[in-house]
């Protein structure tokens, strides 16, 4: 009798936990989709780097950190999906530099943007990431050796990195990440819907469901 009560209470706790968790995730998703309608600028700012056609109807908003390994691992997947659906997907990159010292990497990237070498620089950063992006010991000077490969004017890059607008833009992105409850990178929103379960397949499914919804066959 007593042990039965114990078992029932355990089950109630476990199911209660699962129920509240799924309710919370739905609630968050609803909140984000509401914001996507009412307050689009939280997802895309003037300064945000985008890739893909302006006519695309599926927007992938990615909160990323150049020093984040998972962001590097996910980058090819997003490109693949864009290639597979030409003109239908637009990628918006936002910054959530949560790693130690990650802000200076974002600053380098934004300075490279002024030379029109944004994507080249990001590719080089992701490729060389194992050499400079140690969590406890980020080494910007090591990244510095790789950057010329992107075809950058390094003197100009150094000067552009001092632009106070870059620090402002990072602060804005971090504030938006907080508003949208992004606490890990990469954080994805597809047309305002957050990726609830993290993973390659889950992201693909989310994008596909939006593609199906927008581009009805």
């Amino acid at each position, binding site marked *: 009798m007593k042990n039965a009560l114990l078992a029932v209470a355990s089950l109630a706790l476990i199911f209660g936990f699962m129920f509240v*968790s799924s309710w919370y995730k739905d609630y968050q998703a609803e909140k984000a989709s509401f914001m996507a309608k009412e307050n689009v600028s939280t997802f895309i700012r003037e300064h945000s780097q985008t890739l893909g056609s302006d006519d695309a109807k599926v927007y992938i908003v990615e909160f990323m950190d150049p020093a984040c390994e998972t962001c590097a691992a996910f980058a090819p997947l997003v490109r693949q999906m864009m290639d597979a659906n030409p003109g239908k997907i637009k990628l918006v990159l936002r910054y959530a530099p949560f790693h130690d010292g990650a802000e200076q990497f974002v600053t380098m990237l934004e300075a490279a943007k002024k030379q029109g070498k944004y994507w080249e620089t990001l590719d080089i950063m992701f490729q060389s990431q194992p050499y400079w992006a140690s969590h406890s010991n980020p080494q910007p000077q090591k990244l510095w050796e790789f950057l010329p490969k992107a075809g950058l004017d390094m003197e100009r890059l150094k000067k552009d990195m001092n632009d106070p607008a870059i620090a402002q833009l990072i602060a804005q992105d971090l504030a938006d990440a907080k508003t949208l409850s992004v606490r890990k990178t990469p954080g994805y929103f597809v047309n305002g819907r957050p990726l609830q379960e993290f993973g390659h397949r889950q992201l693909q499914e989310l994008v596909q469901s939006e593609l199906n919804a927008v581009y009805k066959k």
Partner: protein
Amino acid sequence: MSQPEQKSNINWTVLFICWLLVSLSTSISIFFSSVMEFAPCVLCWYQRICLFPLVLILGAGLISFDKNVVKYSLPLAIAGWFVALYHTLLYSGIIPETMQPCSQGVSCTEEYIDLFGFITIPMLSLLSFSMVIALLLILQRRISR
């Protein structure tokens, strides 16, 4: 129902309530970290180390009621209570932040929730440990009587 049997039933119930309390606290703690994705700070981890095992220790004590259960669970609860007290004081600013042990990673004083304007996570932890200790002491007195 005979007198001693009734007494032991009450003892079991006291322990059961205590177990419910730690299980609920554990669930809420995991909810904060895994579902709401609040990163637990160092002090949170020390409190979790004291809290999570209580679910199993008190649970094992319930399955075949063990009179010695207080002996093994009270030290954990007291240790957790002290960490929670320190954390609460740190959080409310009574102990200055420069004295806190975690400077890198997650700050122990970053505020995540603020229920009704004054209830914080460390305070919930302190409350929970206090109630567990009180219940365990009540149980100990009843057993040794």
